[in-house]
């Protein structure tokens, strides 16, 4: 057979493509459920971690069912929307909608006698999406814990938003000032000690040197980009 002939080349290419395509499709379909479970478990892990509950990927489901006593969907007016599963809300799609039509998830977490409200946030980083979970104390104002993550921020710089040393200082910061105005959190440029130098202890955290764009994106995420949608809900809950 003439290996260099036109007919052979066409047939060879066609067979190759069909074989490879079916192989890849088969693998993708077979592995899809396992991958979906991984992503779900990770989300549960993150939600729990924001309220200070450490869990492994295998234990995540069990602990999630135990600690998350209630999950609900709210709109930007702070009203509870019925008929939505909070865990399944895709925040990206919601943020693309008009403000009036948005639905956002809130999880209530109970741990050692305390109740925390966990909010989900999402924003635009330097290279791709960034997201996180904020656990608020009973006053719906003080941050109890924060977890952030990212798709592809610069390693060693912006990517450090998911490190403990960056997340930890969020604990104890307040979203509202003394007059009850929503001021959220400011991330100060200048690395370690920057917030202290400025004197903003209630609403300021230290940024990452070399990761300023990611830090500013995170700041916007905790304000106009996403967290602002929760303000009415927080105000209403605070009054209760």
């Amino acid at each position, binding site marked *: 057979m003439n290996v*260099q002939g036109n007919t052979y*080349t066409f047939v060879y*290419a066609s067979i190759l493509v069909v074989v*490879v395509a079916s192989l890849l499709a088969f*693998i993708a379909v077979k*592995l899809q459920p*396992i*991958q979906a479970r991984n992503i779900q478990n*990770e989300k549960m892990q993150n939600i729990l971690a924001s309220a200070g509950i450490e869990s492994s990927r295998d234990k995540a489901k069990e602990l999630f069912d135990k600690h998350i006593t209630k999950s609900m969907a709210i709109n930007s007016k702070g009203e509870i929307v019925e008929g939505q599963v909070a865990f399944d809300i895709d925040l990206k799609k919601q943020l693309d909608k008009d403000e009036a039509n948005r639905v956002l998830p809130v999880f209530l977490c109970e741990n050692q006698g305390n109740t925390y409200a966990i909010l989900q946030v999402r924003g635009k980083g330097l290279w791709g999406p960034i997201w996180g979970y904020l656990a608020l104390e009973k006053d719906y104002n003080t941050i109890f814990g924060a977890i952030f993550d990212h798709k592809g921020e610069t*390693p060693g710089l912006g990517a450090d938003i998911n490190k403990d040393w960056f997340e930890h200082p969020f604990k104890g910061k307040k979203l509202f000032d003394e007059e009850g105005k929503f001021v959220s959190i400011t991330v100060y440029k200048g690395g370690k000690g920057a917030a202290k130098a400025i004197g903003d202890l209630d609403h300021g955290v230290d940024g990452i040197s070399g990761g300023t764009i990611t830090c500013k994106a995170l700041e916007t995420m905790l304000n106009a980009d996403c967290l602002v949608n929760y303000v009415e809900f927080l105000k209403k809950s605070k009054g209760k």
Partner: protein
Amino acid sequence: MSLFSSKDLKLLTNPLNMNNPITIQVLGICSALAVTVKLEPAVVMSVSVLFVLALANVIISLLRNTIPTRIRIIVQLVVIASLVIVVDQVLKAFVYDVSKQLSVFVGLIITNCIIMGRLEAFALGNKPWPAFLDGVGNAAGYGVILIVVAFFRELLGSGTIWGFQVIPEGFYEMGYANNGLMILPPMALIVVGIIIWIQRARSRDLIES
């Protein structure tokens, strides 16, 4: 016949030094810049490349007499791309944390010129077993350089090795600072350059006249 003839052994060891894909052939530089900020992704990247290169070499070598010359590059690319997708899917399903670490880098394997280079230069003209050894050898040669570069970049850039702090706090109090430049891509090139310099200074026959 033993499993490793002296010729086979050469296939394994040559790329580690005298015919290193990065320092001598200057291939695969782009990924050497991207994944060497920290040691851990560098090691995982090396292992992934080893897997893909060894397997792609064997597959192409098995197919070598059936591939029409005119579409050989396309066939090679299809084989590499499918292997990379398989690796990516398997990592996502079974070692989710590692796959998150690697994120875009797995996709980058497809564009690694070492793989195409070895398929074209070696696998197309040799039997599967030597092709496999050639793949392992070249991937190891690539990995060694990656790991050395990542070691220095992480140590000097972040003061850590494999994520653990190795430079004592006392140094920082005395005024030592991490070198932020080490984290940026240009320093990877400079470190590779220094390695090339050292290698050529040690073996004179590498120096072009």
